[in-house]
């Protein structure tokens, strides 16, 4: 679609700057400005694995239709970084616009006839107005905010309001920042017309918030009643524990005594943070750890211990691009299989797959209930896109009648009654045994081990006793399939036996693809997996669709592999749509794949 036509509240602005120049707050301000004008927005941050100086980009999609994925196109590029100018100008969609700092001449060789290039002397104006070097850098950011406001017609009152909130603490700074904004704003008003890309107040953001998934998940851990957080810093998971910490500082700290109703332990590595989480879970606390791919690899042995000795623990894997160190600041869904099967021997793990920050909040709570109910590790498999980008989601809500499901934990009173406690007996036929907590009535004393054990909890090297426990774990696995959240299913308006099946952060792009395909008369049903093991609905969807496009963000079709392993669905029905270049999924990839398939069918 050409960039110029009918782009009211429907366009993408991308801002290219250098890391550590303070552009983040300027970009956040722009995002919020659209949001407060009532226009749905999507904010994506493409930052380097570096602290200062490397190129970084922020992309704002203004989307009246409320899409939640990136569009994949850039209509207006604010090219503040000379280093990436060549790459940035290439990226602008035909008919689009590029703004650059005309204080310095740009490389003529890089001009493009099919876009409009607007040079604004930002540095010059700012340098004339401000003396201090650091201040000049920051004010240049504010200047492009002003310029953009004028170009796409952002409400200046909204901007002023945001500036006032931003500097509520240091009101002295407000005039300077507004001055910088006006420099940019006025220059545009005086020297150029505003663009066909226009923002106009609407009413689509009420009852919504702009939040990232890690913040929401951290908040979820607080509401779930988690008291022990163990972690080792790693991008992109760090902000999750940071959020838990700051929420707890506010909400879980005694005002008078300063005593904490939580404890966060920064482990010396991931083996340690996994061990701490496991030990706390064994002792009866709701405990969690936050990490990313490399951490999962290191935690594998302890995850296997938790699986086999049946101890609850919650692990958040905020996926980034692998293998190995890979690209720590890019997104991918490359850990689907390691989370599902981590550790040597026969092991399978419960996983939850949030698609946006609201689900991060809800699934964080759910994860603790499932871990304690099932006495097993539960992974919340998120990713950098969901975890660190800015999403517009409905307000988070809370049911005050919620109480944690602590699962089958025997109380001292119950222990008094029974004659003998056996740790691994399947009393209820659901494959879930009863457990006791350290410190309980001595009758409940239990010796836990990762070595071979029988259903009474004793050590064994006898084949049948060992197998008995392994088989019961499969019964528990089937129970888990009935407890994990059911998939999201969207039926096409008209009946179809083709479908799209996906997971996590592909959701937005898939839904946009469904709409585009519908426009083209291609009807598709939709299923988004929310949990592993797969619930019956997933099996049914696969059975009832002759052709299913499995959309995921990794090279090796890991979700498809899991479906092959765990369902009855035959291979021939499943076609992979893969994107694994580190950029969040966009609908065009999916649409293209499905159109090709349709074309092939026609040809055949």
């Amino acid at each position: 679609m050409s960039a110029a036509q009918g782009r009211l509240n429907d366009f993408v602005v991308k801002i290219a700057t250098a890391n550590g120049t303070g552009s983040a707050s300027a970009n956040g301000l722009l995002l919020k400005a659209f949001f407060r004008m009532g226009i749905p927005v999507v904010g994506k941050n493409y930052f380097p694995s570096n602290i200062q100086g490397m190129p970084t980009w922020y992309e704002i999609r203004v989307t009246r239709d409320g899409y939640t994925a990136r569009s994949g196109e850039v209509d207006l590029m604010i090219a503040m970084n000379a280093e990436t100018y060549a790459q940035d100008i290439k990226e602008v969609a035909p008919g689009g616009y590029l703004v650059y700092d005309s204080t310095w001449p740009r490389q003529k060789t890089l001009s493009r006839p099919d876009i409009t290039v607007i040079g604004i002397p930002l540095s010059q104006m700012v340098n004339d107005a401000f003396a201090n070097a650091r201040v000049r850098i920051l004010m240049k950011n504010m200047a492009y905010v002003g310029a953009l406001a004028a170009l796409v017609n952002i409400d200046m009152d909204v901007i002023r309001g945001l500036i006032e909130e931003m500097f509520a603490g240091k009101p002295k700074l407000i005039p300077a920042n507004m001055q910088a904004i006006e420099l940019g704003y006025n220059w545009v008003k005086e020297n150029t017309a505003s663009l066909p890309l226009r923002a106009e107040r609407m009413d689509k953001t009420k009852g919504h918030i702009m939040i990232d998934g890690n913040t929401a998940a951290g908040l979820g851990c607080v509401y779930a009643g988690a008291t022990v957080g163990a972690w080792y810093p790693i991008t992109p998971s760090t902000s999750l524990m940071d959020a838990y910490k700051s929420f707890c500082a506010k909400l879980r700290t005694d005002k008078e005594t300063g005593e904490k109703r939580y404890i966060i332990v920064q482990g010396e590595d991931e083996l340690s943070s996994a061990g701490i989480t496991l030990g706390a879970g064994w002792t009866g606390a709701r405990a969690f750890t936050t990490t990313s791919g490399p951490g999962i690899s290191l935690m594998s042995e302890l995850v296997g211990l938790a699986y086999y000795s049946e101890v609850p623990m919650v692990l958040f894997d905020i996926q980034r691009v692998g293998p190995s160190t890979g690209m720590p600041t890019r997104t991918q869904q490359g850990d689907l299989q390691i989370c599902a099967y981590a550790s040597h021997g026969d092991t399978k793990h419960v996983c939850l797959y949030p698609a946006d920050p609201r689900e991060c909040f809800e699934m964080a709570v759910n994860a603790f209930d499932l871990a304690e109910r099932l006495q097993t590790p539960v992974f919340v498999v998120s990713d950098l896109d969901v975890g660190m980008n800015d999403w517009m989601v409905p307000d988070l809500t809370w049911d005050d009648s919620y109480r944690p499901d602590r699962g089958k934990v025997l109380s001292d009173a119950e222990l008094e009654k029974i004659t003998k406690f056996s740790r691994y007996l399947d009393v209820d036929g659901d494959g879930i045994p009863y457990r006791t907590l350290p410190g309980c009535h001595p009758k409940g004393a239990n010796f836990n081990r990762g070595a071979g054990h029988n259903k009474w909890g004793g050590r064994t090297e006898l084949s049948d006793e060992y197998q008995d426990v392994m088989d019961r774990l499969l019964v528990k696995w089937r129970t888990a399939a009935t407890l994990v959240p059911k998939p999201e299913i969207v039926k096409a308006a008209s009946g179809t036996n083709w479908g799209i099946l996906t997971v996590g952060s592909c959701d937005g792009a898939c839904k946009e693809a469904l709409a585009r395909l519908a426009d083209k008369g291609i009807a598709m049903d939709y299923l988004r997996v929310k949990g592993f093991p797969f619930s019956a609905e997933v099996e049914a969807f696969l059975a009832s669709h002759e052709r299913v496009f499995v959309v995921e963000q990794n090279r090796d079709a890991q979700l498809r592999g899991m479906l092959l392993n765990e369902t009855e669905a035959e291979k021939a029905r499943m076609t992979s749509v893969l994107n694994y270049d580190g950029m969040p999924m966009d609908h065009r990839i999916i649409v293209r794949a499905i159109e090709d398939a349709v074309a092939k069918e026609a040809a055949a």
Partner: protein
Amino acid sequence: MTYIRKPNIAYKGRATNALGLTEASYEGAMSTLCAGCGHDSITAAMTRAFFELGIPPNRAVKVSGIGCSSKTTAYFLAQSHGYNTVHGRMPSITTGASAANSELHYVGVSGDGDTLSIGLGQFAHAIRRNLNMLYVIENNGVYGLTKGQFSASASFGAKTKKGEVNTNPPIDPIKTALAMGASFIARSFSGDKNHLVPLIKAGLRHRGFALIDVISPCVSFNDHEDSSMSYKYAYAHLHTAADLIEDKETITADYAEGTVLPVTMHDGSVIHLKKTDPDYDPTDRARAFDYVMRHQEKGEILTGLLYVDDSRDDMHGLNKTVSQPLTTYDYEKLCPGSEALASLQKRYR
């Protein structure tokens, strides 16, 4: 604590402790270790120490890694929870357990391989956090359970039964703990129960990380001639720096000036150290390090409470955690509720 199981058959006499329990209430399953293994003596000392301290068995928690030594947690305190985890990770799992429930008595049992090789990092960082636990290394200089390879505590030039020579210098748990800043550092010998039991009791009473490195000969793989971890060698080279005096009565003038050092524990109680060497000071870390080295150079095994500082905060004190165990906290006191959620979302608009 009426519900503590009384032993059906009462042996070892009827002696009972403050809780009215006999020592049998503190015993565990039958050991499956080799006859004569030093570890079994440590197990017996554990049983005795918990019995004498009168700790309710169900208030104790045993955690271990993997190894013959780590198996022993099954052989004492049958009425306590125990977790025989994976190799080298006992410290982190105990850290989590203690984080969750600060009220229980945590005893970690490990081996020289479990602690000084695969577990060294976790060992050091548990010390750094001054985790409130008793950490016992059952140190035999070899990997017993995997049939006798040298461990990191094997002395330089040590020979295996087959005559293989160890070419690496040892890592000494005591010097390591001193360097890492441990607050209670002791060494003992599995063959000397009278020496070991008081140390275990003091370690259990210590607030913070209490290390006891116990030389514990492996009769199957490291008790031969020219082993520096054999019973024979140990008996010949033990040198006690400081003994704990159990009953205060015996602290009389018959101790030379300056040889008895009273150490005040966090609970106000006092333990008394009988020093063999007057100018040895177990409260001076640097001098302790020096003292340990001098004796090592002489090939001696220095035993006793080698360093102690009971004044420091443990992990929870440093974190300012509420005193009530987090595991027993009501959910109502942990969940901020719907109103808080509504108001805190303002900043996301």
